[in-house]
Each structure stands twice: as C-alpha cells, then as structure tokens.
C-alpha cells in the first residue's frame, strides 16, 4: 500500500539529514519548481518531494473526481505520503495553493507536523464583503478561458473526458514538457478547486509555528491577503520579501532559502 502511494505521487526522498522537510508544489507546476531551493537543505535534512495526483509524473489513473474536487482531497495526498513514509515532526513548505492544502492536513493530523512555511498563500482568491482576495469571479473566468485556449490543441481536451490516457503516452509525454502537468482536464479542475476555494475559517485552527513568505507585488496573492492570514494564524511569522512575482523559490531562491532557514533556526519545536 505505501509503495503504491509513493509511486502514485512520484515521491522522491533525498538528503543526508534526519529531520523531514516536505516541499509541496503549487497549481500549474510540479516538484521540479523546487530544484533551485532544495540543494541548500540537502546536507541537514531529509527532503521529501512529490507531485499531486494529476500533476507532473504522478499516476493520472489514480485521479478521482470526487476526491480532488476539494482541497481536502489534495490534503489526503499529503497525509497519505507522510503515513507511507512514517514521517514525523515534518516541516511542511507549501507554495501557493499548497499552503492551504498543508493547513488542512495539519488541522486534520497536527501530531505529524512540526511547523509550516507558506510561500505566497491565499485563504480566498475572490473578493468578498470585508475581504480583499484580489480577484472577481469574472477575472477567474478569464483565467479558465486562457487555459482553455492553451489546451485546445490537446486531443483529449475536446474529446469526451477520458481520465486514463495511458494508451496515449506520447501525448502525455509532450504535455509534461510543455506545461508541467499531465492532463489539461485535470489541470482545469485543479484551477477551479484552487481559485474558488475559501479557507478563511480554517486559519485559526492551525496550532503550530508558521512562516508566511509574502512577495512584493504578487499579482496572485497580494499583501493584504498575506497579512490577513498572519492575523488569523495565531503566533505566525510574517516576512515581506524583496522578491517580486508569485514564485520566489524560482525567481529569488537565495532570499527564499535564507528566510526559511532563519525561521527554522529560530523556531523551537
């Protein structure tokens, strides 16, 4: 069973340390996006990398619409991997939507995590009364439209939804190259689950040290949102980065590494 899960999520374990640090990729990419950051942790940590089901080199045939129609389903991936590895005292580093996925996993089973690092998190992307998420419904419809336009070339996007496309290996291969994701239909669903989620109520349930890395001028997770999360997660640490954009671990790996290490050195767990 545990071997199946490690294969399903394309789990890679490396590094020379004992303390487990788990890196979870955000929407739109896979574990490759951590490659500028992980070398800095290899000497002292056991690094766990994985792809969510439907992303990267995961087993697409394990995709279950009901399970992955909620971020709780993605949180099950995290929990099942931790269980399969029998990992404890885990440092969880989540980018973008993975911050909230990690949060849900940590609320469900707080005993296996020691602390959380959120990179560019958002508790809700859509504006609400007394809450600025940064986007309107129309904006996000626009995203889906752009995605549709980019995926239209893929045969199985316009064809009836077939989730298991093993017999179309060459197509999958090509997709991996171009979008870091295996299946446009799944990616579109993931986009919907991500950008239409609302986890504001869950924030106050987190009971462990938490670092929030906020980029400057992040178009996806604006500073108000980062500060909102900082306000709701008791005892969290907020760091405003010089890094711009939404992917500081790719664009500014040094600063990202430095801030994570500073937090880990200061945190007693």
């Amino acid at each position: 069973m545990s071997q199946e899960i490690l294969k399903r999520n394309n789990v890679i374990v490396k590094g020379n340390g004992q303390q487990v640090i788990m890196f979870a990729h955000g929407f739109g990419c896979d574990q490759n996006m951590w490659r500028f950051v992980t070398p800095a942790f290899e000497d002292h940590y056991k690094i766990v990398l994985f792809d969510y089901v439907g992303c990267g080199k995961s087993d697409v045939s394990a995709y279950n619409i009901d399970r992955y129609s909620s971020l709780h389903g993605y949180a099950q991936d995290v929990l099942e991997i931790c269980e399969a590895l029998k990992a404890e005292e885990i440092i969880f580093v989540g980018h973008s939507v993975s911050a909230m996925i990690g949060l849900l996993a940590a609320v469900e089973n707080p005993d296996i995590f020691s602390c959380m690092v959120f990179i560019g998190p958002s508790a809700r992307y859509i504006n609400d009364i007394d809450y600025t998420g940064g986007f309107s419904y129309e904006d996000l419809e626009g995203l889906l439209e752009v995605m549709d336009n980019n995926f239209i070339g893929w045969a199985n996007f316009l064809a009836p939804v077939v989730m298991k496309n093993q017999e179309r290996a060459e197509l999958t291969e090509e997709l991996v190259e171009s979008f870091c994701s295996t299946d446009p239909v799944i990616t579109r669903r993931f986009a919907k689950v991500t950008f239409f989620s609302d986890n504001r109520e869950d924030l106050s349930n987190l009971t462990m040290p938490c670092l929030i890395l906020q980029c400057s001028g992040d178009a996806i997770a604006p500073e108000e949102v980062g500060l909102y999360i900082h306000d709701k997660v008791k005892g969290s640490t907020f760091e405003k980065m010089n890094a711009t954009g939404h992917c500081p671990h790719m664009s500014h790996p040094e600063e990202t590494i430095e801030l994570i290490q500073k937090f880990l050195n200061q945190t007693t767990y």
Partner: protein
Amino acid sequence: MNTEMRVKLGVDDNTIIGSQFEDLLTVGSRIFFQTHFYPLIKMQNSAREIFLSFKGPTDSVPVLLNVEVKSFEKSVEIYCGGMIISNRNRFEKELIEAKRVAEETLAENAELIAVKDALMEHQHKLESQFRKLKSLKEQQQEIFKIITHDLQEPLRKAVFISDFLLSRLHTLDAAALADKLTRIIRCTTQMREMLLTLQRYEELENMNLRYHPIELSLVLREAIAELNIEDDPGIMVTYQESNPIFYADQYLLTHFFIELIRNSIHNRDNQKEILKIEISILETRKNVFLESADKYQFEKFVKITYLDNGEGFLTDSSRVFQILQRSEQFNKISIGMAFCKRIVEKHLGTIVAKSVKGSGVGFTVFFPTNQSSES
C-alpha cells in the same frame, strides 16, 4: 516592443519602458503567466505557442507567443515574438463554447442527475451498512470471548467449590461452610455483573438517537455537575466557552463525556497534584466514507480533542474500546470506553485513542455537524 504591437495595445514608449510584462496582460492571463508561463520559461528557457490575452485600448488582444531566453555573461535577454490570432481565436471560442454546452447538457441531464443522486444515496446506505457490520462483527467476537472465557472462569470456580462442598458436607463446620458459600456468591455476582454490562450495551444498541443542537460547553458543564467534581481542587477541566454548534443526542453525548472524564479519574497519575483535562473543538471537513473504498464526499464535521495528564494506557491503544477491560488499570466491569465508542458510531462519527508522548491519554473524536445516524 515594435510599433505594430504598441499601436495594437495603445501604449507609447514613455509608459511602456520600465513596466512589467505581466502588467500588459488581462487579469486571467496574468494568473496563467505566474502559474504556468513563468515556471516554464524559468526551467526551459523557451516557450512555444503560448496563448495570452493582452489588454488593448478597447478590447483584449489574443496573442500566440513564442519566447526565447538568451543568457550572456552578465545579462539575460528575453525575445518574444507573437501574432494576433483574433480570427483563429473566434473559431476556437466557438469550439470551446460547443464543448461547454455539451458538458453542461450532460451535467444538467435530469435523468442522469436523478440516477447519480440515487446512486449516492445507496452509497451512503451501503457505507452505513458496512460500518454497522464491522461494528457487529467486533461485538460478536467480543461477546463470544466473554461467553467462552470471561464467564467460564467464575462458573468453573463455582462448580468446583460446590462439588467440594457436596463431598465434604458432613465434615465441614459452619464457618468453613460460610466461607465456601461466600466464594460461590462472589463468583455468581461477578457473572451477574458481566451479564448486566452486556445488557446495558444491548440497551444502547437499540436506543434511537434524539437530535439536539449541541453547544459543547453546556454539555461539559452538565457532565461535570453529574460527576460532582466542580469543587474538586484536584481536577481541572478546561474548555472554550463559545463553540461551533453541531447536532447530536444530548443525553448520550453527556454520558460520553461522563465516561471519558471518569476514565481519566480512574487512571490519574498520582504523582501529579492536579488532574488536568483539556477539551477543544473545531469545525472542519472530512470524507464521510470510511469503509467504502475510493468514495469521497467532504462534509462538515466537528473535531473534538480530549487530552489528560494521567498515566496513559499501558495496553495497546486499539484495545481501549473493548467491552470488558482485562488490564489491571481498568475496573474490570467498567465498559465505559466501549460505550463511548458505540455512542460515537451511532452518530456515524469516529473516535481514536492514543497515549500522548510524555504522558496522558488523548482522544480525537469526529462527529458529523448535521444529523446523520446509522439507521
């Protein structure tokens, strides 16, 4: 940026120099840029035929873009070339629209929805049956064990002592006779208590739940009053005052906490001056299917965490909920924990026990927020 593009986007040199690429995009495209386009270029140094919408003076401008990154010793140059695909885009939009309509029609097909709903309902019934079956199987095994083992022991003793009495009837004096008879009574009392325990369990089994909106602090206050420990300086129970509301049988829930607290008192660590019990509750979502493989429906649950600083259980934590506790630290006829488990199961909830690192016992209990019972 060449003149053609500046004209199409309606920007001039002064405003464009120094601005970010993504500032030229529509909001949807900006998200796509950050989540897909940027990682792609960062990792592969090039991208081909990517669709992005630019902000135009009147309407958005659909563009198919190629990007190439050239790295030099001290600098990086990024070349973008693209073409406006308004016409192609129009056709594609029609295709996508047709796909959307087809999907919608499929999704809104009334018969399909009805069948799907019926299927879901059956799945829920099946899940409930699975759980009941599992629970019944566990109970059956335990009751079997009680009959073949626990009840046998006092019965064997009683028969043995009776035989002994019969054979020595004329030689025993009154005091010895009384002693033997007392031992027989002790054996039968023990058997009677076991049978009463089973009877209590049976009563719980057949009880129908009566749902009430539950405010946890009120239930806890009642349980504490019932146990008469409000004024005991040696016992400190802490809990939040305002809590999420959920639906459960108030009578059974109160008894659930009475049993848990009683268990903590029984197993308190005498080295510690004060027995501390911490109870907290939060609202979350959880898959309602436990026993049905690969079925998912995330519904609202309350998660109750119960921690004490007692001795913890020395036995395997999976045995905590057995009907008859055979370990020394539990009162042999106390079936409290088994009761607790049944109460939770009747609400279609779950309970897990563990000995917490350091010391003490921890229970994690999930109750569905809304009414859902086994029947």
